[in-house]
């Protein structure tokens, strides 16, 4: 048995101090940590339990934003009426994630920090090469089975896709990650793998997610999360999109649109090219279709995931249609 020390932090500062130690891992809901420990990826020296810390689990809706404490449970956030009203895509992304049992345990901070489902990352005994686990060791996914790997944001060092659902909504609606001492825009919180795929976020030693803040917007209020997968429940996305739309007063012209992508990129992906192509435009089928194709700008497919190149624009287009149809009862 690998022994590890277990520290039940009594304050946030104590927890921060503790995670400064090499080999320290934070334990909140445990759904990711225990899973990764079982498959031999996580081998913490110290487990710092923050699950009981006060003041980190609230959900607050203010006139400007929604703030969510890092220890809020996925299910509590999904079921929150203020979030359902102000940003349905956030609630939907959570309800379409994991299983009911996992959502009851997993925390929002842990959900943001979940690791990739790349099977090569998760099987260190058989595939020692993984730049994410062991920098410089190589990438076993290259030349392997890549059906579920990323087509956006990849590098020759890593193809692992970010598995998050909530994260897709967060990147679309400009969430801010609260680290206590500083606040980081969600889109900047995650790093591209480049030649350091082991570094996934901007978190510095001793830092941890305290909470999230999601600014209210008309686009967030009129939003949806569309997740496409073979299995109806409890499967990671083949492709997903969080889309929010605000129209001009004419009810036809796009004032603001947000497009986040999941299941296809190495980090929660913001499809800004799609957004730019639609702002100021009147939505019709052809416009939506043409703009949605831009979601795949820069995409690089492997042998098994070329379908994503075709799938993603269709998912984006459908999600845009959904939010535009809901508003006006039909496309302009």
């Amino acid at each position, binding site marked *: 048995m690998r022994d590890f020390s277990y520290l039940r932090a009594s304050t946030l500062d104590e927890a921060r101090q503790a995670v400064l130690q090499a080999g320290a891992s934070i334990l909140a809901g445990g759904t990711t940590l225990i899973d990764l420990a079982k498959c031999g990826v996580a081998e913490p020296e110290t487990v710092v339990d923050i699950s009981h810390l006060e003041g980190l689990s609230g959900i607050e809706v203010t006139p400007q934003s929604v703030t969510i404490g890092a220890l809020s449970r996925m299910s509590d956030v999904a079921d929150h009426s203020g979030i359902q009203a102000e940003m349905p895509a956030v609630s939907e992304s959570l309800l379409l994630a994991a299983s009911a049992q996992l959502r009851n345990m997993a925390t929002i901070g842990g959900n943001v920090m979940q690791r990739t489902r790349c099977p090569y990352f998760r099987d260190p005994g058989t595939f020692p090469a993984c730049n994410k686990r062991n920098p410089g060791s190589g990438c076993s996914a290259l030349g392997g089975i890549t059906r579920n790997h990323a087509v956006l944001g990849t590098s020759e060092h890593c193809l692992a896709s970010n598995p998050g659902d909530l994260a897709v909504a967060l990147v679309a609606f400009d969430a801010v990650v609260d680290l206590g001492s500083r606040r980081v825009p969600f889109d900047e919180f995650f790093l591209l793998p480049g030649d350091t795929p082991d570094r996934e976020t901007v978190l510095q030693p001793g830092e941890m997610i305290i909470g999230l803040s999601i600014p209210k917007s008309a686009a967030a209020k009129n939003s949806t999360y569309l997740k496409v997968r073979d299995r109806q429940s409890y*499967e990671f996305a083949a492709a997903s999109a969080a889309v929010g739309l605000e129209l001009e007063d004419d009810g036809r012209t796009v004032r603001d649109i947000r497009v986040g992508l999941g299941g296809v990129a190495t980090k929660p992906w913001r499809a800004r090219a799609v957004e730019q192509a639609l702002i100021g435009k009147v939505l019709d089928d052809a416009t939506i279709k043409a703009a949605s194709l831009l979601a795949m700008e820069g995409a690089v497919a492997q042998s098994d995931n070329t379908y994503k190149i075709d799938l993603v624009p269709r998912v984006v287009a459908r999600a845009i249609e959904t939010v535009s149809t809901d508003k006006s009862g039909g496309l302009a």
Partner: protein
Amino acid sequence: MTIMPPRKHGDASDGMVGGRLTRFEGSLKLTGAATYALEYPIDNLAHAALVQSTIAAGRVVSVDVTRALASPGVLMVLTPEDDLGLRVSADWQGNRPEDKPYHPLPREVQFNGQSIAAVIAESREQATEAAKLVVVTYEETSPVMSIDDPAAGEGKLMDNLTIGWGDAEAALAASPVRIESEYSTPREYHCAMEPHGLTAKWDGDELTIWEPSQWSHGMARMYAEWFAMDYEKVRIISPYIGGGFGSKGQPLAYGAVAVAAARKLGRPVQLAVTRPQNFTSYGGRAATRQTIALGASEDGVLQAIVHRGRTETSVYMDYPEQTGAATPILYKVENFSSQSRVVPVNTVTPGALRGPGKNPSAYGIESAMEELAYKLDMDPLELRLKNYADHDYQSGKPWSTRMLREALTQGAAAFGWEKRSQQPRSMRDGKTLIGWGIGCGTFPVIRAPSEAMIRVLANGRVEVVSGSIDMGQGTYTILAQTAAEALGVPVSQVDVLLGDSRMPGSSIAGGSMLAGSITGAVHKAAIAARDELIGLALNETGSPFRDTGANTLSLVGGRIEASRGGGPSLSLQELMQALGRDELEIRRNTLAENAQTPDDQKQAWTTMSKVQGPTSGDLSMHSWAAHFVEVRIDEDFGTIRVSRMVSAFDCGRLYNPKLVESQWKGGIIMGIGQALLEEGVVDPRNGRTINSNMADYLVPTNADIPDIEVISVGVPDLDASTLGGKGVGEVGIVGVAPAIANAVFHATGKRIRDLPITLEKLM
């Protein structure tokens, strides 16, 4: 410690054979009161963890166990260096061609994920962690990764699976309408909720093994042979099993390792096979490839079927997944040819998985028939009815019972098939394409002898005792119903004890043969017990019936009284007291009268040598199914959801319709998984199964399953079994996958010939 408290019934209101009694061990399972193999509290238990190979082919050159041995709590490390002293066991038929050593931790690596070492420690966690510290050095050789590997070749022709009559090639060539296609299925896995594992304990030269088992006697025999000991000295205990689906019918290498470790260590050893290890510790369903050519007249009368099958096997054993099993018996055809090959690749030997053979076979022929229907522009239902087999064209024998026509017509009526439009892509709801499909299924009636004991206790309770097992299919419940009816007592008065190789012998719970076999034995024993009770009541001193002048008594509703009425009326308890008996024990078996020697009996309970196939007599006996499926497909995304299913079955008489319907639906749900989700994904570079967990190997969730309507069209078939039932467990899945593939074609116009039908195949 009470190993197996008798399971007691609750409600007795609806209990006789044919009653819809609820599974009476169900509440124990739901409340956690049912004890599974790894849950027995055993003193001084040590724990074993397996080390599995990470290459597909080669040789273990050395195993460095230094760090593992130094790890906390580690007691022992077993490697290919250790001679565990085992001998090979005989096969399922009981044949042992040569007596040679058996190495469950072999030096030769034959597939990725093969167990090659084991660490035994004080705790499972210590063993698991130390197992990671075992360093194996290999000498790699060139593997064959899969049936599609060019190095795999065409495989070996299995002569015993060649079937033919008429002149199929010539008739095909002469047919005005022909189709030919290849159909593929991937490696599929059982994924029983309870993973494999065991606890082994030696007491002197006696061995007790707690292990989930579909065949307590057969497994005891094989363990005994491995360890060169008397069969009687091995005891398998398996009262509850969390699903088997064909995977728990024989002991496996890890079992030999745990038992050997326990002997070496002088302590009981428990071994839990982890979920990922379950994907390579025993075989799932083999990957299959079939080419099927059909020839027909212009009005849709089949002229010829030519079938060629290839299936994966391992490099060390030929396991044929019989893709030609259903092909010859579903339709009337005068010219038929089928050949089957096994293709050795570096995988664990595949095994039986629900509906073995018949399942992929039906996928092939039922897909091909639908392709023919479209080629003819004929309703697929009409084509099937037009080519209805009036008898078994393979054996030439009449059917015992075959209500497949009724299954097709009643299923179609319940489904509303007449509202279907023939053209593909002609039914839609916005962006959702809708398609309907049919698939027929079959599974043979396999008969085997069994034994059972009925015990009447002084308190009037009746015990049914059998070493057969209940893995969720309902053995406890139907045996109580069978005994209650035959004896004439309420079901609430009957207790059932199962799952112990020391108990009376039984057939394997596989091939859908157990229910027909064991109800026959219980029925026979219960009738004998009733006759014995009546005989004693009429003749024994102390019985109030002795001097009544009655020459016959009846036992009804738990009371024994004169058949003509009047006179005493006693409960079983009162009768036992009057007779001064503590217990009455009656044991009966269904072996032939001239095959009752101890050897005959041991063979019957521990091998397959007394098993009879569906055409061993004058008749051809099978269960039948017709599945009707509606799918809804997002035309942009290619995502498929089964939205409606109606399945009609002929399984003869149903001993307990509630449990049968549950089994049928379970099979159908597995079929939905097979059609749309399930596939063992193998890395082409090292043969590793990379989705060996329940998040990545997809089986259906509740959200994937629509309302399923099941209909019974069967009639009692007294040639098939004592009580008139045919098998129900396997046939439920057979024909589901082609029905779905056919519905997908109807919805989209795309014929997907390789399972599973995932979204990218439709995009």
